[in-house]
Every structure is written in structure tokens, then in C-alpha cells.
């Protein structure tokens, strides 16, 4: 028997600042949740008309399609530098960059670190799924020790590939950032925590406080070769052992 929703209160719907476009992400991929959280944040802060999103290279290359706000698609790794240029040119804009682990913590190492070190008044969303999704599941800078990828077929060997880099911890050593946090999405409580963190990271920018970074432990069920639910468990039980959750800097 269908329920008559007309008599009921809508308590959850698509954020207004997101478009109707369907995501190009694989089933169960957390990129979609993160996009929804950012859209909801833009709604709640009422900033859609002055927000510019920066889409990276990688699975989220199409990020500009999802938001009803201006956007710039940029070269791999350079999002924090482009964000710097945009924000300095028009400080009244709210600028967020959306970057994967390869983008933010490998090819964009210098740009990421120095934008943070200058304390650019921007919001960086750093999606850490420990793998290069779009190119076929190669090793990322955050790939776990012994994790198999298409370029570490026998598992990541620290002797030749180094260790998973905790980039947020590196950024947390800097004096300038006002907010550096690591969040996850493997259950509803983490999703709610992450939502608060993202909102805070945007609010800091609105308030002119400076650089905020939200690292989000994400899944890649396709390239991890796990079901979406198994991937969630993997984040909860294994990934968080290497990348502990919580605030690293909070000078807000």
C-alpha cells in the first residue's frame, strides 16, 4: 500500500545547489556522498551565487557538472594554485578545490603544501581513496603497505615504493592552516561528522579565517575489487588504522 507523501513532511531531498545531472561515478563510490555534502553546505550557507568550484583531473574531472555554481576545470595537481589565483583576484568569492589523493598529495604536492603554507583563504576537499581510480587502479601516494594495485601487483612494497603519505599531518605542521581534519563516510555517524567538518571548512572561509582542509577517507569499490559495503568495512577496520580520523588543527 503506497503511503501518501503529500500528508508528510519532506525531511531529506537533493540540495538546491546541485544540478539534476547524474554522477559518472561507479556504484557505491563515496564521491557522490561528498558532492551531496558540499551541495548541502552551499545551500545552508547561502553562498551558491558566489562560490567557484575547482574540478581536478581524475574521476571527479566532471565535478563542475554537479553544482549550480561557477566552476573551473584545471590541470592535474594544480587545483590549489588555481584556487589561489581565483581567490586573490576576487576575495569575495568562495573558492573550494576538490582533489583526489594523486592530485593533492602526489603530482600537486608543491601546490597543495604551499597554498596551505600561505594560509590561502580557501577550502580544500581532499578525497583519499588510496588508489588512482580513473586510470585503472594504480598505486596512489596513500596506497596502504602491501595493498595490491595495478602498478603494485604484489602489494605496495615500502622498500621500493615508500609508505602511504599522511599529507594532512604534514599540512598540520604548518603555522597557517586554521582547520585540518580527517573524516570518513563508512557509516551514518561518520557521514554526519564529515558534514559538520565540511560546513566548518566553508564557514571558516566565509568568515575570512583562512585555509581549511578536509581529508575524506573514501572508497573505490571498483578498483579495490570489493562490494560497496565491504569497502566501507575496509575503511572502518583497516584504512583508519593508517589514517586516523579526527581534527589535526583547529584554530577556528
Amino acid at each position, binding site marked *: 500500500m503506497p503511503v501518501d507523501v503529500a500528508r508528510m513532511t519532506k525531511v531529506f531531498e537533493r540540495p538546491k545547489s546541485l544540478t539534476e545531472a547524474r554522477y559518472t561515478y561507479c556504484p557505491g563510490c563515496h564521491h557522490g556522498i561528498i558532492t551531496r555534502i558540499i551541495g548541502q553546505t552551499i545551500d545552508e550557507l547561502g553562498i551558491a*551565487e*558566489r562560490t*567557484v568550484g575547482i574540478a581536478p583531473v581524475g574521476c571527479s*574531472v566532471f565535478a563542475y557538472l554537479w553544482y549550480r555554481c561557477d566552476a*573551473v*576545470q584545471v590541470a592535474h595537481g594544480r587545483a590549489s594554485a588555481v584556487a589561489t589565483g581565483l581567490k586573490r*583576484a576576487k576575495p569575495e568569492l568562495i573558492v573550494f578545490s576538490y582533489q583526489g589523493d594523486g592530485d593533492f598529495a602526489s603530482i600537486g604536492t608543491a601546490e597543495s603544501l604551499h597554498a596551505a603554507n600561505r594560509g590561502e583563504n580557501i577550502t580544500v576537499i581532499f578525497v583519499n581513496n588510496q588508489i588512482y581510480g580513473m586510470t585503472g587502479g594504480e598505486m596512489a601516494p596513500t596506497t596502504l603497505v602491501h595493498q595490491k594495485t595495478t602498478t603494485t601487483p604484489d602489494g605496495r612494497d615500502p622498500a621500493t615504493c615508500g609508505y602511504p603519505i599522511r599529507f594532512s599531518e604534514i599540512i598540520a605542521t604548518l603555522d597557517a592552516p586554521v582547520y585540518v581534519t580527517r573524516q570518513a563516510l563508512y557509516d551514518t555517524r561518520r557521514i554526519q561528522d564529515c558534514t559538520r567538518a565540511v560546513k566548518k571548512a566553508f564557514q571558516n572561509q566565509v568568515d575570512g579565517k583562512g585555509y581549511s582542509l578536509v581529508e575524506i577517507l573514501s572508497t573505490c569499490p571498483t578498483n579495490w575489487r570489493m562490494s560497496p559495503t565491504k569497502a566501507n568495512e575496509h575503511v572502518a577496520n583497516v584504512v583508519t588504522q593508517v589514517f586516523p580520523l579526527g581534527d589535526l588543527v583547529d584554530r577556528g
Partner: protein
Amino acid sequence: MAERQLLRGNEVIAEAAIRAGCQCYFAYPITPQAELLEHMARNMPRLGRTFIQAESEVAAINMVYGAASAGVRTMTSSSSPGISLKMEGISYIAGSNLPAVIVNVVRGGPGLGNIAPSQCDYFQATKGGGHGDYHMIVLAPSTVPEAAVLTTLAFDLADLYRTPVMILADGLLGQMLEPVELPDPIDPASLPRKPWATTGAVGRDPNIILSFDLGPENLKRMNETLQTKYREIRAREIRYEETDVADADLVIAAYGSTARIAKSAVRMARAEGLKVGLFRPITVWPFPYDALRAVADHVSTVLTVEMSAGQMWEDVRLAVAERAATPFYGEMGGVVPTPRNILDEVRKHAR
């Protein structure tokens, strides 16, 4: 009339950029363009404008990409090895139809090379450098006063065509002092609006800046739009200078610093009774093929002189198309030809 000041080429380009309304400047130190960066460091902040010493050339050009997206006049500068690093960003800027000015104070190469004057980046500047079917407008000043004029023009052309524009200078031009009348400053607020810029989607659909499309047919269309723009630029923006060409039997083809040195050689040759002229491309992209071909129709020889192994020479030969002899004289590695060196070459070929 503006005051005549004795100024260094690098400082003149910087100050002309400020007066052209450059709001954001990003760069990384490298000789021989350090004075340009330093002038911007001293002057941009006090005007309430943005100066950032970027962590790298790569970061600097991407900051330019961001500022250009936001619709402000923006510039970066470097010298050869640094320009190589910027090539990724320049390709994106071209592909995304963004206006920006890039200054290359060319030094000896390849690799680390040296910091002496050279013109060895002509191919990089005019034939691509970065990936993809794109061009930059490339302006090659020959004197310090002209560097000021072309810097102003660079910003105007960049905005008009939404394209990167390069000022192709060299260590000689960057380091020398010459009297200049600087252009009057313009008010950035008076510049035409850029409705395509990402300034916040107020009362309009979102603006998206991008250089890609995964669909070949769509990307082909984007490329065709670029090519249409390049045809317009070729039709309207070719600039060159001819000196003593009308009765010449031999014409020297040279650009930038080399052209002014060649100008002295032309005077010396004329004093000896040799009928020598000078053809100087001011835009090296688009190259003045037709104008040079017209010259080639009434001379026996077009002698290309460059501080390179013969890069512009290829364009000269395309233009001349065997209507005249096309000998070449070049110096490399930061060696600058003197007027006497050029005169000696002229004597070899002049009747």
C-alpha cells in the same frame, strides 16, 4: 607628454603591465628577469593588487589560470627553463580561452643553459611548446620603449581574443637601460566586462572554464573554435617593420634584440654602398609570411640573423618560398652577434 625616464627593460615590462591594469602577478625568481619580479613585488601590493612569489613556475602559471578565470588582467614572467615548466598551464589557458600575458626573457639553452641573451625559444613560443593544437600571440619587442608599447598591446589582445599572449624578450632587452615614456595608467574598472568569467553565478547560469571534452566530436568543435580565432588573429594582428627595404637587394630578417643590432649593420652596409634593408617581424606568431614574401619578390637575398641555430629561419624560408636566396647567420649559447659580425655576413651575400 609623459616624462622620459631611463629604465631597464625588465622594469619597463613590469611597470607597463601595472599601467595596463594587471591586477594579479605570479612568478618564481629566475635570471635574467629578476628585476621584473622585484618591481612587481615592490609595487603591486602598494596598489592593492596581488603579487605572489609562487613555489614554482608551474604554480605561478596555474595561479594565472585562476586569476584569469576570475576575469582580471593577470601576468607571469620567467626565463627559458621556467617557461618550459609553464607550458602545461599555457596549453590549458589556450584551451580554456583565457586571457593572460606571459613574459619570456629568453636566455641561453637548452637545459640550464646560461643567463646570457638568446633567441633559442622561438620554436617553443611560436610552434606550440605545450601540448595540443594551440597558439599564443607572440610579440617580440626590439627596444625598451617598444617593450612598454607591446606590453600594453599584449593585455589588450589577450582580452580581445581570450588567448595567452607572450612577450618574447631576451636577456639583452631585459637588462639594458633606455629612455622610455611610460604609458598612462588605465583604471582596471574601466575595462570591458568579461561575462564569461567565474565571478559567481548571480542571475545567470553557471560559467564553466574548461579545456576538455571526452567526446571527440565535441572536442573537435572546441578545436575548430580555436582555429577560427587563430584565423582572425592572422588576418588582423600581424605586425612588422621594414627599414630601407624599398631599394634593397639584400634584406636581413631579424626580430627582437638581434633586429636592432642588425639595424646598425644596415647603416654600416649602406655607408659602404650596399643596398641592404631590414625586415623585422614584431608578431612572430602570427608570422608576417605575406609581407616577407612581397619583399622576397624584389630582392635577391633574405639573410636571416638570429641568436639561435635557425628557428625563425624556418618561417622565413616558408615565406620566401624560393623567391630569393635564404642564407642564415646565427649565434648560440648567449653569444650576441655584433653589428660587424652581421656586416661580414651581409658582405658575403650582397652584390
